[in-house]
């Protein structure tokens, strides 16, 4: 972001290649021009930026820590982590799909085409795709749907089948169904007609398992749906991965702010969402 008052040393997309000397360093702070930024519905915005070469090395499930403009007369003192919704390597672009909820995202929403977005990344441990899987199930709710975009894209490229179960309050908040339809089958479940109830989603999962279309589970965005997939995965021996959220400060590991609880062989431990995740083994995560 131009006008950042605090010391920083960003890589400027399209202007310098000085970062070449730092090639062995996987992430960077970069200034990325906004290509487009549109409302998807009353609460969500779709942000497309032109990204640096290093930023484009992002893998599904990884995130960027965004320096959001302030939405008001105050100042924002933390960056905001945001997972990637779509990676467009052909055009050198990264896309985010986010919900305007707090000061950070309301500030982010003020960015206009041509403005620069200061982002640090790519960060964290993303999803793993085993090429031996023939069919995966991704289950997302709300903004969690966006996080599951890139892994679905990758599965399609690897000729692994995808069933995307997209859960939302009503039809307006089913986002990106067209994008997921390119990757595979889409099942939409809603609060308005009761189809988003855990019992119904469980039936859908059981049906997919019976059809042998569930070699692995992926989820993001709802604790209830995570708990369902964890239970179902355990009962049926299906490996699973969950992308988790937590308030972050540095986004890089040192501060230990973004911890969540995990349980391994009956022993509880804390892990940092930013660097040990945000994607974790579903059976080890306790939930939120």
């Amino acid at each position: 972001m131009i006008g950042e008052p605090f010391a920083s040393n960003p890589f400027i997309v399209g202007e310098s290649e000085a970062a070449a000397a730092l090639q062995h360093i996987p992430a960077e702070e970069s200034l990325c021009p906004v290509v487009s930024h549109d409302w998807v519905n009353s609460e969500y915005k779709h942000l497309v930026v032109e990204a640096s070469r290093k930023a484009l090395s992002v893998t599904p499930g990884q995130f960027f820590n965004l320096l959001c403009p302030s939405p008001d007369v105050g100042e924002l003192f933390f960056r905001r982590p945001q997972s990637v919704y779509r990676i467009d390597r052909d055009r050198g672009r990264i896309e985010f799909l986010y919900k305007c909820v707090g000061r950070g995202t309301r500030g982010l929403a003020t960015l206009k085409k041509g403005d620069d977005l200061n982002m640090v990344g790519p960060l964290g441990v993303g999803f793993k795709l085993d090429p031996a899987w023939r069919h995966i199930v991704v289950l997302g709710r709300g903004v969690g749907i966006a996080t599951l975009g890139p892994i679905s894209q990758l599965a399609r490229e690897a000729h692994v089948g995808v069933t995307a179960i997209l859960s939302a309050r009503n039809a307006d908040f089913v986002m990106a169904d067209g994008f997921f339809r390119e990757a595979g089958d889409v099942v939409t479940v809603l609060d308005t007609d009761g189809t988003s109830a855990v019992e119904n989603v469980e039936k859908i999962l059981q049906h997919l398992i019976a059809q042998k279309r569930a070699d692995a589970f992926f989820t993001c965005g709802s604790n209830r749906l995570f708990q369902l997939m964890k239970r179902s995965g355990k009962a049926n021996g299906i490996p699973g991965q969950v992308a988790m959220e937590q308030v972050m400060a540095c986004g890089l590991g040192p501060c230990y702010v973004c911890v969540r609880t995990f349980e391994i062989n009956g022993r509880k431990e804390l892990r940092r969402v930013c660097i040990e995740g945000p994607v974790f083994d579903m059976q080890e995560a306790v939930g939120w």
Partner: protein
Amino acid sequence: MVDMTVKIGAVTLKNPVMPASGCFSTDLAQVMDLNRLGALVAKTVSREYRAGNPPPRAAEVEGGMINSIGLPTKGIDYFFEHQVPDYKRFTPPLVGSISATTIEDFEAMARDVAKSAIDVLEVNISCPTRDPKGGNFALHEEHTYNVVKLIRATTDKPMWVKLSPNAGDIVAVAKAAERAGADALVVANTILGLKINTDTFRPAIGNKFGGLSGPGIKPIIVRMVYQCAKAVKIPIIGCGGIVKVEDAVEYMLAGASAVMIGYLTFRNPTGMIAIIEGLEEWCVRRGFARVADLTGTMIDDPPMETFAAAAMPIG
């Protein structure tokens, strides 16, 4: 060409910029070349494993942030076995930081640490979030003297003592640490604070109180650095709210020989590098051949007579 080296007692740093303990780990190699830093400062360890405090562990406030992480650590054996070798992959001197609740444990830890490959021992007697009430050794001069004296007897390693801005009289504590044998003082840790969420009526962070840091606290800590520098002969490392080159300069003018950076790294992970480069440029612009020449050079005339001052031009 500016000489950027500074001496902290027997230790020479290639530049005066280093991370504050708790705001740094080798994880930062994800975004920067750690060999550029004046020193590497490890997160504080204690003898045993500590899970740390309940989340939420940090929140934004006007002027910075409040945190209560609670010194999570895998313990000192893990530190020696895994973390020290990891830090030793890089060239800057390694500052190890220790904390304990009793002076006996502090002494025993210092004895162990003295045998390790760390270059400097930072004694963290000032973490405000480890004790739920925010208490620590650095609040009192005799507690500080007793613990530093005991640690001094165990090791010849350079020993930096990290002071607390929550002490009633930080100058008395600084003098006690010097008397007890500290080689340098880190001024200072975070300021104990409380943020209340007005939607929920609950404290904004899980441990209720937290340490305030960021640019909002800088004038308080700069004042403390100035006062401590006047009172002791050992070097002082300024730490509190540095977010730009001029902030580092200000700390040095107040009497600091070097600076530590915390909050800025959370916002801009390459900020320390920007400050190292900017400080050198600043020295060139202002005609300083050695950055060390900045230390303690605030012009310190006695206040003018009021009527005379009120008749002066602005600026």
